[in-house]
C-alpha cells in the first residue's frame, strides 16, 4: 500500500504543475496595515470609478485599522455601513464598455492564478509602435490601462507603478479573505495542540499495546 501513497503524491504534484499554463509574474504581497491602506487609496483613485466592492463596507476599513480621515474622505456623505459601490452606474458602464466591470471583493479568489494573475494583468498593458494598447494576459480585455503602465517612460515610473499594483493586489487579497490573518494565527495554535495531543496518544497507545504478549 505504500507504493500507492507514493504514486498518489507524485500524481497530485504533476496535476498541480500542469494546471498553470500561462506565464504569470509572481507577486509577494504585503499584509501590514500601511501597505493595504496604500492599496485602498490607489484603488479609490484609480479603480473605484468603474469597480465596486460590494462585500466591503467603509466600516470594515476602519475596523481593520485604516486612517479615519482617509476613510471619511472616501465615503463623503455615505454612511459608514455603505458598501464600496462603483461610482459609475451599470448603465453607463454598459454604454462605455459593453460590459459591467466586475465586482472586485472576491477577485483574488475568482481567477485561476489568483493574486499573480491580477498583478500580471494590471501590469500587462503595452503600446505597439502604431500606438495601439494591448494586454499580454487578457488580450481582449475592455478595461483601459488603469495604472498607465503602457505609457511608463522611465524605469522609475515602472517601478512606481509596480509598487502601486502590488499594493492594490494586497488590498484585494485582504478584501477577499479578511479573516486570513486570524485564520493562520489560529491554525498554528490548533496544529501545535494537535501535535502535542497526538504525540501523547501515540505513547499511550504504545503503552497499552505493550500489555499484549
Amino acid at each position, binding site marked *: 500500500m505504500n507504493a500507492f501513497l507514493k504514486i498518489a503524491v507524485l500524481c497530485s504534484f504533476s*496535476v498541480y504543475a500542469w494546471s498553470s499554463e500561462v506565464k504569470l509574474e509572481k507577486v509577494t504581497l504585503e499584509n501590514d496595515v500601511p501597505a493595504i491602506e496604500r492599496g485602498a487609496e490607489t484603488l479609490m483613485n484609480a479603480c473605484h470609478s468603474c469597480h465596486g466592492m460590494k462585500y466591503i463596507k467603509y466600516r470594515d476599513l476602519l475596523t481593520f485599522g485604516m486612517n479615519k480621515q482617509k476613510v471619511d474622505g472616501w465615503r463623503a456623505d455615505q454612511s459608514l455601513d455603505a458598501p464600496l459601490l462603483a461610482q459609475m452606474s451599470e448603465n453607463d458602464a454598459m454604454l462605455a464598455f459593453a460590459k459591467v466591470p466586475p465586482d472586485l471583493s472576491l477577485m483574488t479568489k*475568482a481567477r485561476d492564478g489568483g493574486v499573480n494573475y491580477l498583478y500580471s494583468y494590471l501590469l500587462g498593458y503595452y503600446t505597439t509602435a502604431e500606438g495601439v494598447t494591448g494586454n499580454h494576459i487578457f488580450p481582449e480585455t475592455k478595461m483601459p490601462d488603469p495604472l498607465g503602465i503602457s505609457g511608463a517612460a522611465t524605469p522609475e515610473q515602472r517601478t512606481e507603478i509596480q509598487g502601486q499594483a502590488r499594493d492594490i493586489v494586497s488590498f484585494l487579497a485582504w478584501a477577499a479573505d479578511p479573516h486570513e490573518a486570524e485564520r493562520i494565527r489560529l*491554525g498554528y495554535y490548533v496544529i501545535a495542540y*494537535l501535535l502535542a495531543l497526538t504525540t501523547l496518544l*501515540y505513547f*499511550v*497507545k504504545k503503552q497499552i499495546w505493550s500489555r499484549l504478549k
Partner: protein
Amino acid sequence: MPSRIIEWIDQRFPLTSFVKHDLTDYPTPRNLSYWWNFGFLAGIVLVLQVATGIFLAMHYKADVAVSFDSIQHIMRDVNYGWLLRYMHATGASAFFFVIFIHMARTLYYGSYRAPRELLWWTGQGLLLLLMATAFMGYLLPWGQMSFWGATVITNLFRATPFIGDQVVIWLRGDYTVGDATLTRFFALHYLFPFLIIGGVLIHLVALHSVKSSNPSGIDLAAKDNIPFHPYFTIKDLYGLGVFLIVYSVFVFFMPDSLIEPANNIPANPMQTPNHIVPEWYFLPFYAILRSVPNMVGGVVAMGLSVMMFAFMPFLDRSRIPGGARYRPLYRLQYYLFLLDMLVLGYVGYVHPTDQTILVGQIATLCYFASFFFVPFISKMEERWLIKRGLPAEVVTLMKSESLEIEKRKLKHSRHNGVKS
C-alpha cells in the same frame, strides 16, 4: 449510586450488554494495520459534517437572489463562520479521501469476500448516498461551477428511456437549474446525511455480526482476537489525531486549494465557464462519462463504473485467503487499477484534447477490463499458486476453512431435515 442507575437501566434496556458486546469486549483481530483506521475516521468526518452543516444552515439562505451573498455573510460577518464553512467544504473532500482509502483497503485485503458481502454492499449504498449528498451540497453556494456542474449532471438524466425530458424537469423542478432546484437540493442535502447515519448503523450491525477481516484474510483463532477497548479505541484515537493534523493544515492554511476559482463568481446562466470540472472526487467517473462518444452510453458507463465494486464478491473466484497478500497477480491487478484511476482522474481534470480523449478511452477500457478479467485471472492464479505450492499456513487454513464449510453445510441439511 451510578451502578444502581445502570442496574435500573439494564433491567429495562440492554445497555451493559450492548456496550460489552459492541465496544469493550468486541473481539477484534490483533493484527489489524493502520489501514483499518479509516472506517472509524469516516464516522468522525460524518459527525463533523453534520455538526458544521447544521450551524451553516442557520445562516445560509437557499434563494438564487441571495445564496451567494449569504455565503459571503458567513465568511465575513458570522462569528467563526469562515471556520465553519472551510471545515465543511474541506470536510467533503476529507470524507471522500477517507472513504476511498477505506474501499481501497477492502479491495486490497479482499475484505469483501464471504461472509462480508452484505457489509460491502451496504458500504456501496453509503458511497452512493455520499456522492448524492456532496453533489447537492455543491450547488448551494450558487457559484458558476455549482450552477454549471448541476446543469451538466442533471442533464444526464435525459438518457432515461422514453421519459428522459420529464425526469430532468422533475429533478430540477423547472426547465433549467434555478430557484426550485436550489431549494430542493438544500432540503435533500439536509436530509441525506441522516439517511447516511441510518446506513452506517446497518453497516455496523453487519460488521459486528461477521466481525472485522484482517490482513491475513483468515478468520483468526480466538486467542488472536483482542477486545476492542482499550486496544483499538486508543489506536483509533491516535489515528484520529494524525488525521486531524492533516485536515487542519487544509482548513487553516490552504482552504481555497479545494475550491475552484470559478465558484467564487456568482452563478450566471448566460455565461458558460470555459472549463466545467467536477470536484476531484468525481473526476475518474466524469472521465469515463466523457470517454463514451454517445451520451446514453456515457451515462450507463459512468453509472456502471461506480457500481462495479458491488460485483467483486462474485467476480473474485479464488479460494486463496487474504486478498492481495498471497496473490501476486491480484496484487498487480490492484496496483494497475489504482494507476488507472489516477489516469482517469487526470483525464477528467484537463480540458479535453484528442490525446486526452484517447487516453481516457483506453483508461476506461482498462477500468472495466480490470473487473471483467477478475474471475478468469483469480481462478487461473489459484491453480497456478496451488501447483507452485502455497505457504504451509495458508494450505492448512484453506483446508480448515473448507472443513468449516462442510460442517456448516452438514449442520444446515440436518437442520432442514429436522424441520421437514
